[in-house]
């Protein structure tokens, strides 16, 4: 499973943008739509696809694509 492609697809689904391009530096600071509701949707979608469950600390720590990758790597 290519994590980059999976994350890209999740971000495109959550932000409802088929042309969204993401990188490690994509974060809450540079995606205006990444509010608290979108964050929950991203977390739940990632958990669903990777069949993992983040801790509350992970959920709080994650604020970028890089943060998602770091947290995913802890569980798979």
């Amino acid at each position, binding site marked *: 499973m290519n994590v980059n492609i999976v994350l890209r697809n999740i971000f495109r689904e959550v932000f409802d943008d088929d042309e969204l391009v993401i990188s490690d530096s994509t974060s809450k600071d540079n995606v205006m739509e990444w509010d608290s509701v979108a964050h929950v949707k991203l977390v*739940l979608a990632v958990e669903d696809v990777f069949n993992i469950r983040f801790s509350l600390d992970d959920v709080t720590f994650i604020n970028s694509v890089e943060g998602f990758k770091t947290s995913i790597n802890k569980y798979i």
Partner: protein
Amino acid sequence: MTIRTFSLENQISFAEISGDFNPLHVDPIIARRLLYGDPAVHGIHATLWAIDMWLKKNGYIVSLTLLKIEFLLPIVINQPVQYVCVDETKDSFYLRILISGKKAVSIKASFLIVNSHEKIHFNSKMVKDECKEVAVSDILKVSGNVDLNVDYVLANRLFPYVVNSLSPVQISELLATTKIVGMQCPGLQSIFSSLVLKFKNVASNCLQMNYDVEDFDERFSRITVKILSTSASGKLYVFYRPPYKQQPSYLDMHKLAARSEFSNQRALIIGGSRGLGEVTAKLLASGGAEVVITYFRGSRDANSIVKDVTNGGGNIFSINYDVMAPLEERNLSIESNWTPTHLYYFATPFIFDGIRGEFNNELFNKFCDYYVTGFVNIVNDCKSIGSNLKKVYYPSSVAVDSPPADMIEYSAAKAAAESICRSFNITENKTEFIFDRLPRLDTDQTASVFEVDNNDPVPHMLRIIRGMSD
């Protein structure tokens, strides 16, 4: 492009059709203390309007096979929203409702075109049930059912094309989802987040929808509710909504200040019926001040505070006063020619109305009306009743230092108010205008579905009141 607003009357009509009378949607006085500051439009109400717009244009008679709805942003009454059909095929549509160009509701459906629908006679009469309040600790045990129902006459007023073109059972099933969430599971403290429904074409006399809590994710206070009727099955996703913030009682606070510590203050507190105004009023009264609180819409809340403080031995009363009213309608008449020596100004609209990264001039003007014009009005009104104000307190915000992306208008208006205070300190030489930048304090305004760090307002306000007594 189709733009509309939802009125409170629309909301009450929808509540009568659906049975979802959650005060978040229909009670402006209670809703002003909840997450959005105003009654929020039922998500299913907005959805049925969007489907109505789509059916009006296409003229099909349809039977839904799949429906996915996401409620992304709250829509409040009198807020302009726009309907957009993003995509459609011969058997699907994708609709959106936008607020200022941002996605508020996303509706994706698959359907079959049919010749007609059988008119269903719904036996049950929609009754206004009590809005239940299920505790978090009990949520996993919750299950139940609601009767399916459509009042065709009422529904026809709100969404005539839906009534004419969508299966009556499917309409009733959609209406049942909002009743389940808003009135029963979890009821009072709910935010409907999304739903997925699959439909099958089965005739049945069983006009009920059953529900059962499948999961509760404590990290996000998110509930998954499984629903099932004869012809539909699916899941509802719901967040627990935080209740409005109840500040400590007078008795809880009355030992924090020395008995006569504030007896040199005749304090007028603008916006004293809740939040920081309420805390300030109780602290001042507990320290021996004579206190008058004003309220705009919250007479129930103001009366409750007056009763609480009076029963505890404090000296307080309340008056109705609107800082935004024209001069001839602003009435600062207080008993026995009472005039304040100290003024505390907490009048505010709902503060989290901004959209990230966008400046909304109308919203900025609304904040300025409250934070600048209203403030100048009350200072002038105090003078007009012969008050010699010694000190005036104005609550600014740390948002002036670091404006959050969705609070640009708020931050700019607070900065403008600080300038007014500085100007007054030059022109009003008998009165000292004090302002400081408060951190995020725990009030109705700062309540959030997700965990945030809010500070206890009591020690902050006590420090400020002591500074005003010097």
